[in-house]
């Protein structure tokens, strides 16, 4: 059984977790090392702790989510917090309520931590200025999804033992992906070399300024990579004439066993989910337990979120 330290009296992290861009390398490493302890706990028979007993955690989801929401919910419960999940959807907005109104009424209930997902970039930043508790960003617009990047990093460390010096490819709809952005910042910070691969219409402008190399060709982009991170191709993008068809996308950017051979022999595959089999990834690869880390990502996601809740909770 792992040794889990009590809550520290002095906070070792900033007030909020809004994005990897705001994070220092010390904070990132602290979260990752805390999370490691929780992996063992989560695999044990008795998973419940009372570190956050008496604390209230509110999950405020303005955008639908399955795995992130359940992961945060479970993480809070395992630490003993009272967890409330609110799926705000568009109902409040339709009634004319703004995000700040919603936040203020929740704030009146004295939460200790709010986990927020919102379709607009910067919404958690706005929220954090108005509430008295810690705010954790569970994904905002196209900007950041910090806990996803942290769980991806933990998964890589768990398998490869390190991140420094690894070559990692992120492939797919980079333009619309907050996961890609957060991963680029974190992996760069931890010393990896990052390639991004996408058709030009799905590549953000000035992406090279984020410290990555960009490719429009899988063969070149995957060359000697240790990790291949695939992103979901959002089907709604097909109508904005970003791409001619799914078929053509799969031909050039879908990950097949053949294309995976461009990477290192022992290269591993990651995907933040949900997957579109046959669009960005071959179904054989998706299920290949020797290559795919998808299940492990989900598993370690809970541990990372426990670490974040523990460190950031007021």
């Amino acid at each position, binding site marked *: 059984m792992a040794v889990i330290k009590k809550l520290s009296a002095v906070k070792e992290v900033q007030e909020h977790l809004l994005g990897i861009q705001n994070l220092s390398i010390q904070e990132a490493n602290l979260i990752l090392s805390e999370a490691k302890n929780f992996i063992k706990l989560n695999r044990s028979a008795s998973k419940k702790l009372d570190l956050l007993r008496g604390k209230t955690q509110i999950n405020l989801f303005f955008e639908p989510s399955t795995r992130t929401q359940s992961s945060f919910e479970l993480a809070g419960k395992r630490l003993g917090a009272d967890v409330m999940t609110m799926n705000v959807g568009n109902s409040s907005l339709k009634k004319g309520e703004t995000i700040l109104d919603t936040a203020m009424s929740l704030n009146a209930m004295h939460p200790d931590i709010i986990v927020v997902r919102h379709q*607009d970039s*910067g919404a958690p*930043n706005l929220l954090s200025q108005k509430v008295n508790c810690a705010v954790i960003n569970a994904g905002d*617009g196209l900007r*950041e999804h910090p806990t996803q990047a942290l769980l991806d990093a933990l998964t890589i460390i768990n398998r490869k033992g390190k991140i420094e010096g690894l070559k990692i490819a992120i492939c797919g709809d980079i333009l619309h992906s907050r996961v890609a952005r957060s991963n680029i910042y974190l992996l760069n910070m931890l010393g990896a070399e990052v390639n991004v691969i996408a058709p030009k219409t799905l590549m953000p*402008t000035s992406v090279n300024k984020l410290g990555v190399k960009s490719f429009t060709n899988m063969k070149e982009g995957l060359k000697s990579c240790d990790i291949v991170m695939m992103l979901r191709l959002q089907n709604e993008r097909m109508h904005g004439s970003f791409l001619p068809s799914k078929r053509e996308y799969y031909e050039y950017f879908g990950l097949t066993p053949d294309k995976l051979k461009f990477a290192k022999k022992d290269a591993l595959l990651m995907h933040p989910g949900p997957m579109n089999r046959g669009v960005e990834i071959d179904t054989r690869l998706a299920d290949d337990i020797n290559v795919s880390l998808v299940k492990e990502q989900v598993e370690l996601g809970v541990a990372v979120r426990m670490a974040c809740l523990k460190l950031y909770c007021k």
Partner: protein
Amino acid sequence: MKEKYFINARIIDPSQNLDEIGGIIIDEKGKVKAVGKAVNKSNVPSKAEKIDLKGKVLIPGIIDMKVFIGEPGFEYKENFRSLSNAALSGGVTSVVSMPNTSPVIDNVSMVDFILRRGRDKAGINIYPSATLTRNMDGKLMTEFGLLSKKGIVGFTDATKTVQNSEIMSRIMNYASDLDVLVMQHPEDHELSKGRCISEGEVSTRLGLQGIPYIAEKIIIERDLSLLEEYPCRYHISQLSSSKSVDVIKKYKKNGLKFSAGVSINNLSLNENDIGDFKTFMKVSPPLRKEEDRKALVQGVKDGLIDVIVSDHKPEDEESKRLPFAQAAEGSIGIETLLSLALELYHNDSLPLKKIIETITYNPAKILKINKGSLKKGSDADLCIFDLDQPWKVDVSKLKSKSKNAAIENRKLQGKVLMTYLKGESVFNLQ
């Protein structure tokens, strides 16, 4: 009204290429009787009351070519009275009001309303503009002739752009015959739809969909091509990128006649000022790179850009306290227009006379209005300022009804001390 005498001022009036220490005499009717170094202590009546402006600068009252007033429909954001107070504190005596009110100003009876309200409530000269197309939907042109007769000085769809090239060509063709002024906000809607801020590293980092510079350039190039066929009085309301400056340079070199403006925001701020989603920095056209800002300043210096506007757009708190993508565009600025422009003088970017020209003489020329000059016989609209006085922009002290100032808390150098409208004192800082 008695005659008024101002002496010992540094008088800058680009309309007569004047920059000298001297005085000005205002007659009983509020007109300029004499101006320049000939007016001094020794030749004004010894008993007359003289206002000594030693160390101060005196210029024609400022003309702001792009101001959103809020009446009718948005009185909670700004009204004629609050706008006038803000304008006069900034030395602005004449404004072109934007027609994107609710309802929009696209017909004769609305012009009547604006003129009457303006006459009763405003303490400044209001020059109303009307929309280019009915309801600003880019389809049917408005009654240029009838509206002009009523007193409309120019036509613009304010923050919208006529997208259809056929309609734009007809507008220009028709306008050329009536000699009316067409003012375009250049932005391709398809390339800017659902987007805010400038496209680039900052937009990628903030996770916002950016507006590419090409959205502006493509409309400017289209319009200038049309202008070669249908020469009318054409004005580009605002530029934001260096590429747009290149385009107008090319066409002006070829002898094409048109004018262009720029917002003081785009001359003084860049995309990095957006910081952590500051919605007051959300303006249209968007703030772009530092290189773009510099190119715009150079464009003003070279005379490619004729006017500087405040692009005053009051927005209430509710419209701004939202996630960035949902927040309204715009910043107030009429009160700080001159002071912020003086920053460009103090940091050696622009000569003082050039700055004054772009906010007095040039807009008057473009609008064909009898303002912006201190020539003998013109209305004595005056702005008197201290070139060096330091101050900090405290939004709570600004007179505009809305407080969305992009330059909130900025330290500025140079402040308006007195404003005169037709010879009457309408603002005095003391």
